[in-house]
């Protein structure tokens, strides 16, 4: 894929690797993702998907290879982290604080000029504004996940890293998340979506990859994928683990 001549790729890695002790959790990953694209990564538990996202999010240093976000090398400084939004199956929220306080806290850390308004806008986008003043611990798991997504989206990140974001979401929450992700894509954000759920991944992706034992064992553009046949092909690739 070609980026614009003067615009670096949103995410670019070459031979990206991360080792824990003797085990390579990520072993030579190449990614070229431009603004407005979405890479869906499928793979069984332990494939290294979460570690890959944590490296791209600046939470872990790579052991080898090169990784760039918006042209800036990882692990980067605050300018890199300001461009990334990270969503995981952990909510990353403070249970004692309200939904609004949690999102507003994130907005303040991002340095937004009007954090309260930004928090309200993000909660509205995820259709959870009516519960904004409820402590997070009193919300259902699905609502907590929506608040968590609002937290990650509050600064309209350039690169969104999603680790099983649909976990715990009901139909309304899943729809709100998909809509928000499509808006971000349309606005030029690059998405990397890690999931076990093929349907959700294929719905958003512009390209798909299967990760197994730290490596991409299959990478292809979305339009080359036959969604109906993909589940069987995926199971053949990763075996019983998938």
């Amino acid at each position: 894929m070609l980026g614009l001549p003067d615009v670096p790729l949103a995410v670019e890695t070459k031979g990206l690797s991360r080792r824990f002790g003797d085990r390579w959790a990520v072993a030579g990953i190449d990614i070229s993702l431009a603004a407005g694209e979405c890479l869906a990564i499928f793979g069984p538990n332990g494939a290294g998907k979460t570690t890959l996202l944590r490296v791209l999010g600046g939470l872990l240093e790579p052991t080898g290879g090169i990784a760039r976000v918006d042209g800036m090398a990882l692990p980067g400084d605050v300018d890199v982290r300001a461009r990334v939004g990270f969503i995981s199956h952990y909510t990353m929220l403070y249970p004692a604080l309200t939904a609004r306080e949690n999102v507003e806290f994130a907005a303040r850390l991002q340095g937004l000029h009007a954090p309260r308004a930004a928090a309200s806008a993000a909660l509205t986008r995820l259709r959870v504004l009516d519960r904004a003043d409820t402590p997070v611990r009193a919300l259902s798991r699905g609502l907590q996940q929506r608040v968590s997504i609002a937290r990650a989206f509050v600064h309209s990140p350039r690169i969104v890293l999603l680790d099983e974001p649909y976990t715990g979401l009901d139909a309304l929450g899943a729809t709100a998340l998909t809509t928000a992700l499509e808006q971000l894509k349309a606005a030029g954000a690059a998405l990397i979506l890690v999931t076990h759920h093929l349907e959700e991944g294929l719905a958003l992706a512009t390209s798909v990859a299967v990760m197994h034992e730290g490596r991409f064992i299959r990478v292809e553009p979305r339009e080359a994928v036959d969604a109906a046949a993909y589940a069987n092909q995926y199971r053949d690739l990763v075996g019983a683990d998938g």
Partner: protein
Amino acid sequence: MNAPLASPPSSREDILTTGTSAPAGDAPDVRRHPHTLAAAWIIARKDLAVEVRTRSAFLSAAVFTVLAAAIFFYTWDPTAVPAVDLAPGVVWVIFTFSGMLGLHRSFAGELSDRAIDALLGAPISREGIFLGKALANLIFVLAVQLVAVPAVLLFYNVDIGWTGAAMLAGITVLAAIGLVIVGTLFSAMAVNTRLAELLLPVITLPFLVPVVTAAAQATVVIMNGRPIAGAVAWVRLLAAFDLVFVVACTLAYPFTIER
């Protein structure tokens, strides 16, 4: 990954500064990453808000201080040791252990749902995170001492007057800075270990010996009504300890984070 760009943004800064993912009508927002002290204040406010909502750590520490003062009082033989000789030691023993009660939760609270990942992923310096945690801990420890010190003075019937009270308050602030700055760093280091709550005091207390010694010796001078000049050297030691450890611990904190 090889799909053409559907609608490239006019510039990357447009997206960063205007929040174009927001629905039409949302007000544009402007960003300036918080500098270290601003980030520290944001984090300290959040930690204090969490403590105000739960009150668990403060109430536990406050009850502990009163119980400890009572136990020391009822094991005291006033015919053997005068109150003004015993009370300084009691104040600083209670100060040390009640202060430790709140330090563990400082980083443990960030781990419950991996909120620490959002914190580390935010565009703020690692030093800002540390100073924010330390500031919240300092306010917590000082709030506990507002219960502890008067409780000891009441139990032992020690009258230090307003001047003495002001000086004791100053010593308490200096000692609290030393305690929380060391304790916050070790809390960050111990939080990912098993038995973190046990490990924290074990590794922290040896570093607090100079703080407690200096604070107790200065308090002896105040409670015995001796000339203030006798406490100056101890106060200088406290200030020097604070200065050195605030700088050293702030610089050391980024190395405690798993990379």
